[in-house]
C-alpha cells in the first residue's frame, strides 16, 4: 500500500518538474540563444517479489538541453563570416560611393582640365584661357587630394574600429573564461548535472565573440570551453585569457595592427586574422583601401610626370623652356622600427608605365636585397649587392652602404601620392604652349622645297634654341647646317627624310634648288604658336599606364570598376551569407527552439498526468479506508 502511495507521489513530483520545465520553456520562448529543455524520466526499479518485479513509480534522471552541437557550431561560423562580410561591405561601399560621386570623382575635373588645355591650344596668347587652365589644374589636383584625404580618414576609421574591436574581444574572452569557471562550479554543486542555462549563455558569448574574430572551439572533459584563433593561438584556455593588443605597424605609425599577448610576448596576428569584424576591417584595409589609394596615386603620379615631360618640351610666353607644371609626388619609403642599421634606402620614379599601385617590402639578406610584393609575398626583384642602385617595378631604388642583415623597408610605390599632387606654377604666362622651334623657308628660294613643322627630339640639347640655317649646295644633293657653333659637313638630302640636328627633327619635301635656304629658329616670346599645347591636350588619349596600354582616364576608370566590383562582390556575399545563416538558424531552431503550441500540448499532457497521479494518491486513501472500515466492524 505504501508502495502505491510512493508511486503516486513520485509521479506527482516528476510531473511537477515537467510542468516547471515547460513553464521555463514558455518563459524563454523569446530569449536569444535559449535552448529548449526536456525532463528525462525513468521508471524506478521495482520491488522483487516471488511473482516478479512490482514497479515503484517514476523519477527524473536529468534535465537536458535539446541541442545539436553541429548546429551551434554552424551558427558560430556564420556569425564570423557574416560580420566579416558586413564590415567589408559597409566600408567598401563607402569607397565606392566616394569614387562614384560626380562631385568627388575625377572624371569631370579631368575632362575640364583637358578642355582648358585645349582652350590654351586654340588661343595660346589669351591670358584668360591660360588662367582658366591654371584654375582647372588646381581643381584637379585638389580633387586628387580630397580623394586621398577620404582614404586617409577611412584608414583612421579602420584604426578606431580596430581599437574598439580589440576592446570588445578582450571583454568577451574574459566573460567566457569566467563562464568556464562558473560552469565547472555549478556542475560540482549539482553532482555533475549540466547547468543548461549557463551553457546557453556561454554559447551565446562564443557566438558574439565569433562575430568579432574568427575562432575555433574545443570542449574540455570538465566542460570548460577552449577558444583558439588565427594560427592556432589560444584566446581562452579554461579560465586563462590571452588578451589581444593593438600594436603600431612596423613601418607606419599611423596604422595599427593586432597582436596576441601571451605572458610577456606579443605574437603578431595582423596578417593571419580572418573572420569577424576584425577580419573584415583588416581585409578591407589590405584588399580594398590600400590598392585603391595605390591606384589613385598611380594616376596622380602618371598625370604629373607625363604632363611635366611634355610641358618641358614647350616654350612659355617669356620664351623660356617649360618648367614643371605639377609637383610630382615622391614614392613613400619607411624603415622598419626594429632595423639595426641606419636608413639607407632612397626611392624615385623611373618609368611611369612600369609602376603598379602596390606596396613592396624590401629585405636585406646580408649580401643581397629582395623586393617582395607586400600583398602576395612574391619576390619581384633581387639586387645582388649591399649597396648601389637598381630599377624594378618602375622605381629606381638607391641603397647606400650600412645596412645590417635582416633590415626591412616598406616601399609604397604610389599609395598616398595623390595627396601631394600640386600645381607647380602660379604665373599663367609660364604655361609652355608653344613649340620651342619653328621653321622658315627663304622667300628667295628658287626650288620647290617645303619645310614641315619641327619636332623636338631632345629638349635637353643645349643647342636646341640656336638659329640654324640650312643651305643647299650646288648641286642640291647635299646641304650644310650652320649655327653659332659653326657649319656642319655636307649632309646628303633625301626628299621627306628626317633631318635631326640640335635636338630637333624636320623634313623637307619637294625639290630644293642650289642655294635654297631654310631656317630652324627659336620661337620668340609671346608667340601665338600652339605646338606644345596640342601635344599636352593629346595626353588625354595617350597610353601612359601599364606599359603604355592604358590612358589616365582608363586608369581611373579601372580603379572605379575595381572598387565597384569589390563592393558588388561584398554585397553579394552578404546576401549569400544571409541566406546561409537563415538556413542554419532555422535548422538550429527546429531542433532547439521553443514552439509554443508544442509547449501548450505538453502542458495539457503533463497537467492530465499530474491529475492522474493525484488520483493514485486518492486511490490509496480509498483503499486504506476500505481496510479500516472492514476492521471496525
Amino acid at each position, binding site marked *: 500500500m505504501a508502495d502505491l502511495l510512493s508511486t503516486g507521489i513520485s509521479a506527482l513530483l516528476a510531473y511537477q518538474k515537467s510542468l516547471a520545465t515547460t513553464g521555463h520553456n514558455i518563459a524563454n520562448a523569446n530569449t536569444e540563444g535559449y535552448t529548449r529543455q526536456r525532463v528525462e524520466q525513468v521508471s524506478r526499479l521495482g520491488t522483487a517479489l516471488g511473482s516478479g518485479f512490482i514497479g515503484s513509480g517514476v523519477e527524473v534522471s536529468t534535465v537536458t538541453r535539446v541541442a545539436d552541437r553541429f548546429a551551434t557550431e554552424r551558427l558560430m561560423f556564420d556569425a564570423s563570416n557574416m560580420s566579416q562580410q558586413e564590415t567589408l561591405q559597409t566600408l567598401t561601399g563607402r569607397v565606392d560611393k566616394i569614387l562614384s560621386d560626380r562631385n568627388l570623382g575625377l572624371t569631370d575635373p579631368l575632362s575640364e582640365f*583637358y578642355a582648358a588645355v*585645349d582652350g590654351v591650344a586654340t588661343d595660346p596668347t589669351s591670358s584668360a584661357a591660360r588662367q582658366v587652365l591654371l584654375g582647372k589644374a588646381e581643381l584637379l589636383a585638389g580633387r586628387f587630394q580630397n580623394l586621398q584625404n577620404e582614404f586617409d580618414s577611412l584608414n583612421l576609421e579602420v584604426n578606431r574600429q580596430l581599437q574598439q574591436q580589440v576592446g570588445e574581444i578582450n571583454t568577451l574572452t574574459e566573460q567566457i573564461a569566467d563562464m568556464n569557471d562558473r560552469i565547472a562550479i555549478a556542475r560540482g554543486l549539482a553532482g555533475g548535472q549540466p547547468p543548461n542555462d549557463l551553457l546557453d549563455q556561454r554559447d551565446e558569448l562564443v557566438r558574439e565573440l565569433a562575430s568579432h574574430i574568427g575562432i575555433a572551439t574545443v570542449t574540455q572533459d570538465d566542460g570548460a570551453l577552449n577558444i583558439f584563433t588565427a594560427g592556432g593561438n589560444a584566446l581562452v584556455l579554461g579560465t586563462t585569457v590571452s588578451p589581444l593588443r593593438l600594436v603600431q605597424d612596423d613601418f607606419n605609425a599611423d596604422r595599427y595592427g593586432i597582436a596576441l599577448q601571451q605572458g610577456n610576448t606579443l605574437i603578431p596576428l595582423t596578417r593571419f586574422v580572418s573572420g569577424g569584424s576584425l577580419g573584415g576591417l583588416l581585409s578591407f584595409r589590405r584588399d580594398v583601401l590600400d590598392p585603391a589609394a595605390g591606384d589613385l596615386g598611380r594616376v596622380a603620379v602618371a598625370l604629373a610626370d607625363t604632363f611635366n615631360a611634355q610641358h618641358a618640351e614647350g616654350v612659355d610666353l617669356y620664351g623660356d623652356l617649360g618648367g614643371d607644371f605639377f609637383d610630382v609626388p615622391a614614392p613613400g619609403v619607411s624603415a622598419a622600427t626594429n632595423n639595426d642599421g641606419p636608413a639607407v634606402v632612397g626611392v624615385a620614379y623611373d618609368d611611369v608605365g612600369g609602376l603598379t599601385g602596390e606596396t613592396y617590402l624590401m629585405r636585406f639578406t646580408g649580401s643581397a636585397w629582395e623586393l617582395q610584393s607586400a600583398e602576395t609575398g612574391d619576390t619581384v626583384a633581387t639586387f645582388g649587392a649591399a649597396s648601389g642602385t637598381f630599377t624594378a617595378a618602375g622605381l629606381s631604388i638607391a641603397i647606400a652602404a650600412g645596412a645590417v642583415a635582416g633590415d626591412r623597408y616598406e616601399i609604397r610605390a604610389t599609395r598616398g601620392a595623390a595627396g601631394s599632387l600640386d600645381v607647380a606654377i602660379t604665373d599663367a604666362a609660364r604655361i609652355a604652349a608653344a613649340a620651342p622651334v619653328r621653321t622658315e623657308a627663304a622667300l628667295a628660294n628658287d626650288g620647290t622645297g617645303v619645310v614641315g613643322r619641327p619636332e623636338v627630339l631632345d629638349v635637353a640639347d643645349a643647342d636646341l634654341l640656336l638659329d640654324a640655317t640650312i643651305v643647299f649646295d650646288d648641286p642640291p644633293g647635299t646641304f650644310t647646317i650652320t649655327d653659332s657653333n659653326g657649319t656642319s659637313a655636307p649632309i646628303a638630302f633625301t626628299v621627306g627624310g628626317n633631318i635631326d640636328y640640335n635636338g630637333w627633327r624636320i623634313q623637307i619635301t619637294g625639290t630644293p634648288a642650289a642655294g635654297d635656304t631654310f631656317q630652324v629658329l627659336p620661337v*620668340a616670346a609671346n608667340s*601665338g604658336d600652339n605646338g606644345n599645347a596640342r601635344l599636352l591636350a593629346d595626353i588625354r588619349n595617350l597610353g601612359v599606364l601599364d606599359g603604355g596600354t592604358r590612358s589616365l582616364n582608363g586608369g581611373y*576608370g579601372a580603379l572605379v*570598376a575595381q572598387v565597384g566590383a569589390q563592393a558588388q562582390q561584398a*554585397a553579394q556575399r552578404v546576401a549569400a551569407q544571409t541566406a546561409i545563416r537563415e538556413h542554419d538558424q532555422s535548422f538550429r531552431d527546429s531542433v532547439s527552439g521553443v514552439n509554443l503550441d508544442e509547449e*501548450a500540448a505538453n502542458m495539457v499532457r503533463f497537467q492530465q498526468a499530474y491529475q492522474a497521479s493525484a488520483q493514485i494518491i486518492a486511490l490509496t486513501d480509498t483503499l486504506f479506508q476500505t481496510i479500516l472500515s472492514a476492521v471496525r466492524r
Partner: protein
Amino acid sequence: MPRIATDAIYRQAVAGILDRQSSLLKVQQQLTTGLKHTTAADSPAEFTQGLALDQRLAELSRYKDNASAARHRLNVEESALGSVTGVIQRVRELAVQGNTDALTDVDRRQIVAELRQQFDQLVNLANQDDGEGNFIFAGGNNGAAPFAKTATGVGYSGDQSYRYIAIGPEREIADGTPGSEAFQRIANGNGTFRYTADPANTGSGTLGAARLADPSAYDGETYTLTFTSATTFDVVRTTGPGSPATVVSGGTYTEGEAIGFSGVEIAVGGTPATGDVFTVEPSAAQDLFSTVQNLIDALSTSTGTSASAAQMHNGVYNALEDLDRGLDHIQTVRATVGGRLNALEDTIGAQEALDVQLQETLSGVRDLDYAEAVSRLQLALTTLEASQQSFLKIQGLSLFNFLR
C-alpha cells in the same frame, strides 16, 4: 515534417518584410534619380562605361568649341582674301585705264592717287585681326600687326608658322595662313620667267607678247637681248655654265615678230634704238605690295618723250603680269581656306552624328527604363503587402487561444 520554433516564424516573417522594403526602396531611389545605378557597385562594367562615355562626349564638345574658333578665324580670313581679290581687280582696272596714250600725266596722277588708297587698303587687309587681337596673317607672331610700310616697301614681322587646331581625333586644320605665304611668296612675271625692258633704253621699244613655248627647253637662266643696230640684235645667256654665251647672233628685228631661243618666245614692239636691252630672267618671289608699288611708280613716270612713254607702258606691262599672278595666288589661298572650312563642317557633321550615337549609348548604360522600373515597383509593393498580410494571419494562430 521538421518542427518550427515560434520565434522562427516571427523572425522569418520580419526578415521577409524587411527584404521587400529594401527592394522597394531601391526601385524608389532609381525612380527619383532616373538613374539605373547609384554607385559603381550596382554594375561596375556599365558604370565605368558611362564614365568613359562622359569623357568621350566632353572631348567631342571640346572639338566642337575648337572648330568654332577655327571656323571664325577661317571665315575672317576668307572674307579678307575676298576683299584682297576686289582690290587687285580694281588695281588692274586702273592699270589698264592708265596705260593709254590718250591720257595726260595729270590724268594719270588721279589714277595714281586712287592706287595709293588701294595700296593702303591692301596693307590694312593684310593686317586683319580676328576681333580678339589675333592677327590672321601673322603666323605664330600673331600678337602684333605683321605688315608695316617702310622706306623700302612693306615689311613683314610675322613668321612662317601655321597654327593647327585639333577638330577631331587625329584631325587638325590650320586656322590661318602666314602673311609670307599669302602675300609674299608670289612668283612674278608669268610664273616661269619675267620679261623686262631696261629703263635706260633710249628707243621706244616696248615689251611684246612673251610665252614659254617649250617648258622643257627653258633652263631657268637669264638672257639679254641687245640691239646691235636698229634692225639687228644678239641674244646672250648671262648666267649658268659657260656664260656669257651667245645664243642668237645677228638676229633681224621685225616689229611684233616672235624671237625664239631656249624654249622662250618673246616679241618687241615699237622702235628700239641701238644698245637697247631687253631681259628674260627666271621668276622670283615678289610680294603683292611691291607689285602695286611698281604700278604706282610706272604710272607716275612722266611721258614727255616716246622713250619715257615706252618705259611707262613697259612698267604697266610687268605690273599687269604680276597682278595676274597675284590674283591667281590669292584665289588659290582662298580656295585652300574654303577647302579647310568644308573639311571642318564635314568633321563637325560627322562628330555631331557620333555625339547623338554616344548619347544614346550613354542613356542605355545610365538611364533608367521607367516602364520596367514601374512594373518592378508594382511587384515590390504587391509582395510587400502579401508578406505583411500573411504575417498578420499566421501570428494569430496559437493553441493557447483555445485553452480556456
